[in-house]
């Protein structure tokens, strides 16, 4: 008899849940949810910050070998930066000559990471939402400009981002390497473990260490956002398209602050 009464409670709770679902999707619960999130978001940010500090304590010290590699890479980037600066100056000079002004198409909104989705561990929760102008599909970059995800779900005060290694992430990209022809393709995540670039035409000249960046063909996705670097090219005979493995340039687990790119138009 006692267990029958308690199972009635189970049915009552399921019925109550159904009412809550209807109220939520009809927007009735939005103000209460907004207040609730506004009150609790700082707690989430604080716990996340504490977790990052603890992680920092356990981080391994960098070895001499790694230090030399980083130094070498840094030097290479300095040289590349100089070349880019030269190109930038030439570009500005030409624009001036042509009286061509390009309006700023995008603005950046800084957001803090509150935590992760309790079910989908490749989804990160941000402390900004639709009230701040965020919509589904908007790209997200790290503070140094590397593409780290896309918005997949938006609420008023929070939003959820998906990282490039998740299976549901895909975006159009181009390869920026030694060749002047920017090979196009599509990157997709692989179950949280890595990134795969697909639909690479056979015969295209792409090599290990080439940079992969967005091609700008996707709506609301600016061109030139770096996704990662090619680590392996897989070409098979009698197949139209090849694939390549892309390694991300940043560790998504160490992100604490990101920037959401908001279109101005």
């Amino acid at each position: 008899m006692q267990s029958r009464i308690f199972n009635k409670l189970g049915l009552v709770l399921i019925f109550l849940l159904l009412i809550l679902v209807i109220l939520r999707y009809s927007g009735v619960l939005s103000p209460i949810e907004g207040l609730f999130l506004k009150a609790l978001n700082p707690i989430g940010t604080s716990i996340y910050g504490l977790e990052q500090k603890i992680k920092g304590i356990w981080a391994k010290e960098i070895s001499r070998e790694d230090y030399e590699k980083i130094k070498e890479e840094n030097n290479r980037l300095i040289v590349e930066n100089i070349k880019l600066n030269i190109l930038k100056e030439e570009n500005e000079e030409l624009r001036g000559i042509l009286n061509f002004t390009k309006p700023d198409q995008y603005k950046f909104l800084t957001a803090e990471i509150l935590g992760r989705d309790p079910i989908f561990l490749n989804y990160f929760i941000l402390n900004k939402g639709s009230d701040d102008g965020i919509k589904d599909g908007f790209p997200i970059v790290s503070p140094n400009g590397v593409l780290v995800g896309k918005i997949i779900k938006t609420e008023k005060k929070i939003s959820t981002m998906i990282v490039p290694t998740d299976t549901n992430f895909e975006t159009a990209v181009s390869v920026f390497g030694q060749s002047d022809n920017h090979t196009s393709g599509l990157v997709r995540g692989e179950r949280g473990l890595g990134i795969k670039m697909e639909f690479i035409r056979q015969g295209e000249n792409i090599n290990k260490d080439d940079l992969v960046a967005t091609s700008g063909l996707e709506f609301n996705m600016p061109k030139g956002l770096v996704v990662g670097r090619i680590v392996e090219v897989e070409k098979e005979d009698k197949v139209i398209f090849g694939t390549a493995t892309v390694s991300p340039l940043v560790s998504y687990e160490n992100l604490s602050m990101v920037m959401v790119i908001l279109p101005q138009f």
Partner: protein
Amino acid sequence: MFSWKKFLKILGTIFLIAFLAFFEISFISLLPAPFNHFSLFLPVIFFISIVVSYRQALWLGFLEGIILNIFSVFPFGSISLSIIISLVVVNFLLNNFFTNKSLYSLIILGILGNLIYLFNLILIKFIFFLFGIGGNDVSEALSPFVLSESLWQNAFNILMLILFFYIFNFWGKKIKALFL
């Protein structure tokens, strides 16, 4: 009539629910694999259901699920529904098969409850996939990678249940302890 004891009990419950939710979202889920597969709220809810009160566990699971669902892309209500169904099944098994409330029954019920909870989530994901509103195909949901995550979650949950068992046994007399 207003009672301080009742008020403090409600306040304590709200604090527990909020703590479990944020600990899950902002701490555990950001730990490196495989530690991020641990779910603190599940062993807590199962333990309360089996040892303390089924009624309290149902309410706790219901409210906890709602809070977690606000922060999840999962359809609203899915997490609460999965928790409630697993609690109902665990309670049924407890009252009809595992009646002695020993450590072994606690572990087996914890494993079964966790598996039922995960199965419910996979089923809901698949249903939404069939309707074309996101979700996952069964092959993705039952991939070896996902199954290994489930094994890790079960392992951590069992450890927590054993810990709760011995702590509760040390402080309380409600449960009968049987050593391995």
